[in-house]
């Protein structure tokens, strides 16, 4: 039988993969994709908790509502973030994080 721990383990591993991507990759767009993976790992944990803690014989819909809002906000965030990346590319002709270090101390 599947337990809550199985879902939390898979969710945590997906989060770790996204985290590693943010730390190791230096292409801004790939970093952005890794961020999306981390958001989705949180979504999986939320849906698993909602399903395992039933309310009146139904999944706890408060958890699923949070996932719904996260997906909406993430879609808006992707649109704005990619527009910023395009603006950056127009100004600097690069999407490599090490070539964009003017603000670095």
């Amino acid at each position, binding site marked *: 039988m599947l337990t809550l*721990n199985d879902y939390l383990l898979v969710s945590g591993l997906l989060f770790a993969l996204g985290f590693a991507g943010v730390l190791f990759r230096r292409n801004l767009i790939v970093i952005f994709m890794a961020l999306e993976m981390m958001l989705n790992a949180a979504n999986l944990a939320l849906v698993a908790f909602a399903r395992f803690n039933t309310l009146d014989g139904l999944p706890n819909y408060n958890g699923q*509502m949070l996932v719904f809002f996260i997906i909406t906000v993430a879609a808006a965030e992707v649109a704005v973030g990619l527009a910023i990346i395009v603006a950056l590319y127009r100004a600097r002709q690069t999407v490599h994080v090490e070539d964009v270090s003017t603000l670095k101390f």
Partner: protein
Amino acid sequence: MSPILFWLFSALMLGFGANVILNRNPIASALSLVVSFLGLAALFVGLDAYFIGVIQVLVYAGAVMVLFLFIIMLLDLKKEKRRNLRPFAVIGGGAVVAAFVTQLLIVLSRFPGGTKTLPALTGSLDDTRNIGSTLFSNYNLPFQAVGVLVLVATIGVVVLSKRELK
């Protein structure tokens, strides 16, 4: 959801997720992320969250990833050149990720609710109907706020995409 299907889709999701960060070609990364999100949608369906699963496929695997691919092709990104890795950054990053996974395993092994198995559902599982009634009753204000947020994001993207900011 049978354990075999669960582990199959989990392996699919994690395998293609690893390919996202290992592949040097951004287009291959984006397409791997689509497959990873489809595996995640299958896990959502296995947790009886049908509406969230469909939203995941439509919004993430559909709209968001098309946006990513569009931008990658618009900027015409080539395969990355191999650059020298800085050893300090690699060791530091690896240590942080390893610490996170270790901590995850420790927390899960001590989590008392973790051994719970899937409880049976007795109510009527009209997923979309239930989510809709929750959304428009308990979560009406956040819903309106998200509407404003999406409008602001749309205007922001239009302003950012203008050639000259005035």
